[in-house]
């Protein structure tokens, strides 16, 4: 599907025009985006560390999960709105930006991971709420979540470094080191 006509329409929207017309709009909105990202990742990490049994092992999982999730979602809403505002004035370049695509794919994966967790493992949470270690699949969900959300941040930051290079990841920046990193970290996450 060709996204370019849609991107061009979005770029021509009045909201996009307002973003481009204001000197301060982009920096202010981008800074708010980072504040929101900090809350999203910071709260999710606390939940994931409980799943992994690394922290808060003595607290019921549902307490850790339910008390933080409203803050995660509120911050995610702010991140999404500011993210869309940042996207609009750059829409045509973002849709062909590899780092942006990878970030959206990571966000989708995070959503799938969370949905699977909620609809399968969380249904049976009564059986393992106070357990440590929690079932292996729940631990895996926690590890996967941490990795994916880290990827979201890394790719998000990478967008800013690929804009100046014909708006795609330049050849001289390779992602091989990410593969090497995963290979070296991977074995320690098992168990």
């Amino acid at each position, binding site marked *: 599907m060709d996204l370019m006509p849609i991107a061009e329409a979005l770029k021509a929207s009045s909201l996009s025009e307002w973003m481009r017309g204001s000197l301060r709009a982009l920096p202010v909105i981008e800074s708010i985006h980072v504040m929101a990202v900090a809350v999203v990742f910071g709260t999710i990490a*606390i939940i994931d560390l409980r799943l992994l049994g690394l922290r808060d092992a003595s607290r019921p999982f549902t307490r850790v999960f339910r008390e933080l999730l409203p803050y995660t979602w509120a911050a995610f809403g702010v991140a999404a709105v500011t993210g869309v505002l940042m996207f609009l004035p750059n829409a045509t370049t973002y849709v062909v930006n590899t780092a942006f695509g990878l970030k959206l794919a990571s966000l989708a994966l995070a959503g799938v991971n969370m949905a699977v967790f909620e609809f399968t493992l969380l249904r049976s949470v009564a059986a393992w709420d106070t357990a440590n270690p929690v079932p292996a699949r729940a631990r895996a969900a926690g590890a996967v979540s941490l990795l994916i959300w880290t990827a979201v941040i890394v790719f998000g930051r990478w967008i800013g470094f690929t804009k100046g290079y014909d708006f795609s990841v330049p050849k001289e920046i390779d992602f091989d080191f990410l593969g090497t990193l995963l290979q070296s970290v991977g074995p320690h996450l098992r168990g």
Partner: protein
Amino acid sequence: MVHGFAQWLQSTRLSVTIQSVDWIIPTVQSIHIVTIALVFGSLLTIALRVLGRVRTDQPLPAVLERFVPWIRNGILVLAATGLVLIVGEPVRELMSLSFWVKMGLLACGIVSAAAFCRSVERRPAGGDPGPTTAAKWGAVATVVLWLLIIFLGRAIAYDVEVWGPLSLSPRA
């Protein structure tokens, strides 16, 4: 004077190396952001506990025991990665009003956090009357302070746009 220092730093071999390897700055920035998220998440949880919103099943000292090491170690990682970013892009960082305001707020943030921890430690065990009104305002102020620190960290890249004529940037 600062400009001269920044230009000298930019010409050092270490700085030139950081500048010449494309992935160093974005990677270090990514680590910096992941770490600030972990630090802020910890700080926010302590603040929400003081406000009685989360972890009311845990005594405050237990909450501090869980999160203070993350804040302390996180700040060390932030300082180390921040230093790499300064050495790699000295003019962009040091010639930025956001950077210096951020450093000022950071000093306040660290001092107030340390003072808060000390006041909790000094309280008598048992018969805990719960956080005082002052502690609650302190919690809110700390969260706002660290949000500003995060905001200014990102704003460093846009000194002219954000500060206009006040900007320290040579672009101004």
